Protein backbone atom coordinates (compact mmCIF):
# COMPACT_ATOMS: atom_id res chain seq x y z
CA UNK A 1 0.00 0.00 0.00
CA UNK A 2 2.70 2.43 1.05
CA UNK A 3 4.84 1.68 -1.98
CA UNK A 4 1.77 2.18 -4.15
CA UNK A 5 1.28 5.71 -2.82
CA UNK A 6 4.98 6.31 -3.06
CA UNK A 7 5.05 5.27 -6.70
CA UNK A 8 2.13 7.48 -7.69
CA UNK A 9 3.79 10.31 -5.83
CA UNK A 10 6.78 10.16 -8.14
CA UNK A 11 6.27 12.55 -11.06
CA UNK A 12 8.00 10.20 -13.47
CA UNK A 13 5.80 7.25 -12.51
CA UNK A 14 2.70 9.42 -12.57
CA UNK A 15 3.58 10.72 -16.00
CA UNK A 16 4.01 7.21 -17.37
CA UNK A 17 0.95 5.69 -15.74
CA UNK A 18 -1.41 8.57 -16.44
CA UNK A 19 -0.58 8.20 -20.14
CA UNK A 20 -2.16 4.74 -20.01
CA UNK A 21 -5.18 5.71 -17.93
CA UNK A 22 -5.94 8.97 -19.68
CA UNK A 23 -7.38 7.66 -22.99
CA UNK A 24 -9.81 5.45 -21.10
CA UNK A 25 -10.96 8.38 -18.97
CA UNK A 26 -11.59 10.48 -22.04
CA UNK A 27 -13.41 7.67 -23.83
CA UNK A 28 -15.70 6.89 -20.91
CA UNK A 29 -16.47 10.50 -20.08
CA UNK A 30 -17.13 11.57 -23.67
CA UNK A 31 -19.35 8.53 -24.21
CA UNK A 32 -21.33 9.33 -21.07
CA UNK A 33 -21.62 13.02 -21.93
CA UNK A 34 -22.71 12.23 -25.50
CA UNK A 35 -25.33 9.75 -24.25
CA UNK A 36 -26.54 12.15 -21.59
CA UNK A 37 -26.75 15.00 -24.08
CA UNK A 38 -28.87 13.15 -26.61
CA UNK A 39 -30.99 11.56 -23.91
CA UNK A 40 -31.47 14.75 -21.92
CA UNK A 41 -32.07 17.07 -24.85
CA UNK A 42 -34.21 14.91 -27.09
CA UNK A 43 -35.61 11.91 -25.25
CA UNK A 44 -36.31 12.94 -21.66
CA UNK A 45 -39.98 13.88 -21.28
CA UNK A 46 -40.99 17.52 -21.07
CA UNK A 47 -41.49 18.85 -17.56
CA UNK A 48 -45.20 19.37 -16.85
CA UNK A 49 -45.74 19.32 -13.07
CA UNK A 50 -44.27 22.76 -12.44
CA UNK A 51 -44.96 24.19 -15.86
CA UNK A 52 -41.28 24.63 -16.66
CA UNK A 53 -41.72 23.01 -20.06
CA UNK A 54 -38.56 22.34 -21.98
CA UNK A 55 -36.54 24.96 -20.11
CA UNK A 56 -35.96 22.31 -17.44
CA UNK A 57 -33.51 20.64 -19.86
CA UNK A 58 -30.96 23.16 -18.55
CA UNK A 59 -30.83 20.94 -15.48
CA UNK A 60 -28.63 18.50 -17.42
CA UNK A 61 -25.77 20.99 -17.49
CA UNK A 62 -26.58 23.08 -14.42
CA UNK A 63 -26.66 20.31 -11.83
CA UNK A 64 -23.58 18.37 -13.07
CA UNK A 65 -21.59 21.62 -13.18
CA UNK A 66 -22.74 22.58 -9.69
CA UNK A 67 -21.89 19.12 -8.32
CA UNK A 68 -18.55 19.20 -10.02
CA UNK A 69 -17.69 22.69 -8.81
CA UNK A 70 -18.03 21.61 -5.19
CA UNK A 71 -16.27 18.29 -5.78
CA UNK A 72 -13.37 20.06 -7.46
CA UNK A 73 -12.90 22.26 -4.42
CA UNK A 74 -12.97 19.24 -2.11
CA UNK A 75 -10.53 17.34 -4.35
CA UNK A 76 -8.28 20.38 -4.49
CA UNK A 77 -8.27 20.61 -0.69
CA UNK A 78 -7.61 16.85 -0.41
CA UNK A 79 -4.68 17.15 -2.82
CA UNK A 80 -3.44 20.14 -0.80
CA UNK A 81 -3.62 18.10 2.38
CA UNK A 82 -1.64 15.26 0.79
CA UNK A 83 0.92 17.80 -0.39
CA UNK A 84 1.25 19.49 3.00
CA UNK A 85 1.40 16.28 5.05
CA UNK A 86 3.47 13.97 2.83
CA UNK A 87 5.21 16.61 0.69
CA UNK A 88 4.08 14.82 -2.48
CA UNK A 89 4.69 17.26 -5.29
CA UNK A 90 2.34 15.60 -7.78
CA UNK A 91 -0.53 16.33 -5.40
CA UNK A 92 0.34 20.02 -5.50
CA UNK A 93 0.55 19.96 -9.29
CA UNK A 94 -2.91 18.40 -9.41
CA UNK A 95 -4.22 21.05 -7.00
CA UNK A 96 -2.70 23.76 -9.21
CA UNK A 97 -4.53 22.62 -12.32
CA UNK A 98 -7.80 21.87 -10.51
CA UNK A 99 -8.36 25.46 -9.36
CA UNK A 100 -8.96 27.09 -12.78
CA UNK A 101 -11.17 24.21 -13.91
CA UNK A 102 -13.19 24.51 -10.71
CA UNK A 103 -13.66 28.21 -11.35
CA UNK A 104 -14.84 27.46 -14.90
CA UNK A 105 -17.35 24.88 -13.64
CA UNK A 106 -18.62 27.28 -11.00
CA UNK A 107 -19.10 29.88 -13.69
CA UNK A 108 -20.96 27.34 -15.86
CA UNK A 109 -23.27 26.53 -12.95
CA UNK A 110 -23.88 30.24 -12.32
CA UNK A 111 -24.44 31.05 -15.96
CA UNK A 112 -26.82 28.18 -16.63
CA UNK A 113 -28.64 29.00 -13.40
CA UNK A 114 -29.02 32.63 -14.44
CA UNK A 115 -30.26 31.68 -17.91
CA UNK A 116 -32.66 29.19 -16.40
CA UNK A 117 -33.91 31.96 -14.14
CA UNK A 118 -35.31 33.95 -17.06
CA UNK A 119 -38.12 31.55 -18.04
CA UNK A 120 -38.74 30.40 -14.43
CA UNK A 121 -38.45 33.58 -12.37
CA UNK A 122 -38.64 36.15 -15.12
CA UNK A 123 -35.29 37.61 -14.11
CA UNK A 124 -31.62 36.87 -14.77
CA UNK A 125 -30.56 36.88 -11.17
CA UNK A 126 -32.25 35.93 -7.95
CA UNK A 127 -30.53 35.72 -4.61
CA UNK A 128 -31.49 32.10 -4.48
CA UNK A 129 -29.67 30.06 -1.81
CA UNK A 130 -28.07 27.74 -4.35
CA UNK A 131 -26.92 30.51 -6.70
CA UNK A 132 -25.60 32.59 -3.81
CA UNK A 133 -23.48 29.75 -2.43
CA UNK A 134 -22.22 29.11 -5.96
CA UNK A 135 -21.20 32.75 -6.28
CA UNK A 136 -19.30 32.56 -2.99
CA UNK A 137 -17.64 29.35 -4.18
CA UNK A 138 -16.49 31.20 -7.29
CA UNK A 139 -14.87 33.85 -5.10
CA UNK A 140 -13.15 31.13 -3.07
CA UNK A 141 -11.72 29.61 -6.23
CA UNK A 142 -10.55 33.00 -7.47
CA UNK A 143 -8.90 33.64 -4.10
CA UNK A 144 -6.93 30.39 -4.27
CA UNK A 145 -5.83 31.11 -7.83
CA UNK A 146 -4.85 34.71 -7.01
CA UNK A 147 -2.92 33.72 -3.88
CA UNK A 148 -0.91 31.10 -5.74
CA UNK A 149 -0.02 33.63 -8.40
CA UNK A 150 0.94 36.36 -5.94
CA UNK A 151 4.04 34.64 -4.61
CA UNK A 152 7.38 35.08 -6.32
CA UNK A 153 8.53 31.61 -5.29
CA UNK A 154 6.44 28.71 -6.57
CA UNK A 155 7.04 26.71 -3.43
CA UNK A 156 5.65 29.37 -1.08
CA UNK A 157 2.73 29.94 -3.43
CA UNK A 158 1.91 26.24 -3.40
CA UNK A 159 1.98 26.02 0.37
CA UNK A 160 -0.07 29.19 0.86
CA UNK A 161 -2.68 28.08 -1.68
CA UNK A 162 -2.83 24.69 0.06
CA UNK A 163 -3.56 26.29 3.42
CA UNK A 164 -6.22 28.50 1.88
CA UNK A 165 -7.82 25.55 0.09
CA UNK A 166 -8.04 23.64 3.35
CA UNK A 167 -9.43 26.64 5.23
CA UNK A 168 -11.94 27.08 2.41
CA UNK A 169 -13.10 23.48 2.44
CA UNK A 170 -13.84 23.69 6.16
CA UNK A 171 -15.85 26.83 5.49
CA UNK A 172 -17.87 25.56 2.52
CA UNK A 173 -20.41 23.58 4.59
CA UNK A 174 -20.68 26.47 7.07
CA UNK A 175 -21.27 28.94 4.23
CA UNK A 176 -23.83 26.63 2.61
CA UNK A 177 -25.68 26.15 5.86
CA UNK A 178 -25.69 29.83 6.76
CA UNK A 179 -26.80 30.89 3.28
CA UNK A 180 -29.68 28.38 3.44
CA UNK A 181 -30.65 29.78 6.83
CA UNK A 182 -30.48 33.35 5.49
CA UNK A 183 -32.56 32.36 2.48
CA UNK A 184 -35.35 30.73 4.46
CA UNK A 185 -35.35 33.69 6.84
CA UNK A 186 -36.12 36.12 4.07
CA UNK A 187 -38.63 33.82 2.38
CA UNK A 188 -38.62 35.19 -1.15
CA UNK A 189 -39.67 32.90 -4.01
CA UNK A 190 -41.31 29.70 -2.86
CA UNK A 191 -39.75 27.94 -5.79
CA UNK A 192 -36.14 26.93 -6.19
CA UNK A 193 -34.66 25.86 -9.47
CA UNK A 194 -34.03 22.21 -8.84
CA UNK A 195 -36.34 21.26 -6.01
CA UNK A 196 -39.05 19.02 -7.25
CA UNK A 197 -41.05 16.35 -5.54
CA UNK A 198 -39.80 13.03 -6.92
CA UNK A 199 -38.46 13.43 -10.41
CA UNK A 200 -39.57 10.55 -12.66
CA UNK A 201 -36.93 7.99 -13.58
CA UNK A 202 -36.77 8.92 -17.25
CA UNK A 203 -35.82 12.45 -16.14
CA UNK A 204 -33.16 11.72 -13.54
CA UNK A 205 -31.45 8.84 -15.32
CA UNK A 206 -29.99 11.09 -18.04
CA UNK A 207 -29.03 13.48 -15.24
CA UNK A 208 -27.11 10.71 -13.53
CA UNK A 209 -25.36 9.84 -16.80
CA UNK A 210 -24.45 13.49 -17.28
CA UNK A 211 -23.10 13.84 -13.73
CA UNK A 212 -20.91 10.76 -14.17
CA UNK A 213 -19.73 12.05 -17.54
CA UNK A 214 -18.76 15.40 -16.02
CA UNK A 215 -16.81 13.65 -13.26
CA UNK A 216 -14.99 11.59 -15.89
CA UNK A 217 -14.22 14.77 -17.78
CA UNK A 218 -12.77 16.30 -14.62
CA UNK A 219 -10.54 13.29 -14.00
CA UNK A 220 -9.34 13.14 -17.61
CA UNK A 221 -8.66 16.87 -17.83
CA UNK A 222 -6.86 16.89 -14.48
CA UNK A 223 -4.63 14.01 -15.61
CA UNK A 224 -3.89 15.80 -18.86
CA UNK A 225 -3.00 19.10 -17.26
CA UNK A 226 -1.10 17.53 -14.37
CA UNK A 227 1.10 15.89 -17.01
CA UNK A 228 1.76 19.31 -18.51
CA UNK A 229 2.54 20.68 -15.08
CA UNK A 230 4.97 17.81 -14.46
CA UNK A 231 6.81 18.59 -17.69
CA UNK A 232 6.97 22.26 -16.77
CA UNK A 233 8.28 21.76 -13.25
CA UNK A 234 10.57 18.80 -13.93
CA UNK A 235 11.96 20.43 -17.06
CA UNK A 236 15.54 20.10 -15.89
CA UNK A 237 15.26 16.57 -14.57
CA UNK A 238 17.22 13.84 -16.26
CA UNK A 239 14.17 11.76 -17.22
CA UNK A 240 12.36 14.65 -18.93
CA UNK A 241 15.42 15.51 -20.96
CA UNK A 242 15.79 11.86 -22.00
CA UNK A 243 12.11 11.67 -22.77
CA UNK A 244 12.24 14.62 -25.09
CA UNK A 245 15.43 13.46 -26.73
CA UNK A 246 13.93 10.06 -27.52
CA UNK A 247 10.60 11.35 -28.67
CA UNK A 248 12.19 13.06 -31.60
Amino acid at each position, binding site marked *: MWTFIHKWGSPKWF*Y*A*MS*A*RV*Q*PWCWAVSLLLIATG*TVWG*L*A*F*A*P*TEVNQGQ*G*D*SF*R*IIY*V*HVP*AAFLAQSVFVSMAAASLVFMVWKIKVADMAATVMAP*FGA*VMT*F*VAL*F*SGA*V*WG*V*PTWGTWWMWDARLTSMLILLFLFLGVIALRGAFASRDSGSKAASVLAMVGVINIPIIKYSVDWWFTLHQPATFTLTSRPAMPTEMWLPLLVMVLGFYG*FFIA*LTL*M*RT*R*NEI*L*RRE*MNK*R*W*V*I*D*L*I*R*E*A*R
Partner: protein
Amino acid sequence: MAFSSFAAFLAMGGHGPYVWAAWGVTALLMIACVWHARIERRLLIRSLTRRTRREKMRPPQSGKTAPNSLQASQADDT
Protein backbone atom coordinates in the same frame (compact mmCIF):
# COMPACT_ATOMS: atom_id res chain seq x y z
CA MET B 1 -38.48 11.09 -28.40
CA ALA B 2 -40.02 14.12 -26.77
CA PHE B 3 -40.25 16.20 -29.95
CA SER B 4 -42.28 15.65 -33.09
CA SER B 5 -39.97 17.44 -35.52
CA PHE B 6 -36.50 18.91 -35.71
CA ALA B 7 -37.96 22.42 -35.70
CA ALA B 8 -39.78 21.61 -32.47
CA PHE B 9 -36.53 20.29 -31.05
CA LEU B 10 -34.78 23.57 -31.87
CA ALA B 11 -37.65 25.63 -30.48
CA MET B 12 -37.65 23.70 -27.17
CA GLY B 13 -41.29 24.57 -26.59
CA GLY B 14 -40.55 28.30 -26.81
CA HIS B 15 -37.58 28.11 -24.43
CA GLY B 16 -35.07 27.55 -27.24
CA PRO B 17 -32.80 30.57 -26.63
CA TYR B 18 -32.40 29.77 -22.93
CA VAL B 19 -31.77 26.06 -23.33
CA TRP B 20 -29.34 26.52 -26.20
CA ALA B 21 -27.53 29.42 -24.52
CA ALA B 22 -26.93 27.40 -21.35
CA TRP B 23 -25.88 24.28 -23.23
CA GLY B 24 -23.82 26.24 -25.74
CA VAL B 25 -21.80 28.14 -23.15
CA THR B 26 -21.21 24.94 -21.18
CA ALA B 27 -20.02 23.07 -24.28
CA LEU B 28 -17.89 26.00 -25.38
CA LEU B 29 -16.12 26.33 -22.04
CA MET B 30 -15.52 22.60 -21.73
CA ILE B 31 -14.09 22.42 -25.24
CA ALA B 32 -11.97 25.46 -24.45
CA CYS B 33 -10.57 23.65 -21.39
CA VAL B 34 -9.49 20.67 -23.50
CA TRP B 35 -8.16 22.91 -26.25
CA HIS B 36 -6.14 24.94 -23.76
CA ALA B 37 -4.64 21.79 -22.24
CA ARG B 38 -3.64 20.51 -25.71
CA ILE B 39 -2.07 23.81 -26.75
CA GLU B 40 -0.28 24.02 -23.42
CA ARG B 41 1.17 20.56 -23.98
CA ARG B 42 2.22 21.27 -27.55
CA LEU B 43 3.96 24.52 -26.61
CA LEU B 44 5.76 22.87 -23.68
CA ILE B 45 7.01 20.00 -25.81
CA ARG B 46 8.07 22.37 -28.55
CA SER B 47 10.11 24.53 -26.19
CA LEU B 48 11.65 21.47 -24.53
CA THR B 49 12.58 19.99 -27.90
CA ARG B 50 14.14 23.25 -28.97
CA ARG B 51 16.19 23.28 -25.83
CA THR B 52 17.41 19.72 -26.42
CA ARG B 53 18.38 20.63 -29.95
CA ARG B 54 20.31 23.60 -28.66
CA GLU B 55 22.16 21.44 -26.18
CA LYS B 56 23.08 18.94 -28.87
CA MET B 57 26.08 21.11 -29.65
CA ARG B 58 27.54 19.99 -26.35
CA PRO B 59 29.08 16.51 -25.96
CA PRO B 60 26.42 13.81 -25.44
CA GLN B 61 25.53 12.95 -21.87
CA SER B 62 25.26 9.48 -20.34
CA GLY B 63 23.11 7.08 -22.37
CA LYS B 64 20.47 6.42 -19.72
CA THR B 65 17.16 5.54 -21.39
CA ALA B 66 13.63 6.10 -20.27
CA PRO B 67 11.19 3.17 -19.88
CA ASN B 68 9.20 2.14 -22.90
CA SER B 69 5.89 3.32 -21.53
CA LEU B 70 7.17 6.86 -21.65
CA GLN B 71 7.91 6.61 -25.32
CA ALA B 72 4.52 5.08 -25.92
CA SER B 73 2.83 7.90 -24.09
CA GLN B 74 4.75 10.33 -26.19
CA ALA B 75 3.66 8.66 -29.37
CA ASP B 76 -0.05 8.35 -28.73
CA ASP B 77 -1.08 11.71 -27.43
CA THR B 78 0.94 14.38 -29.05
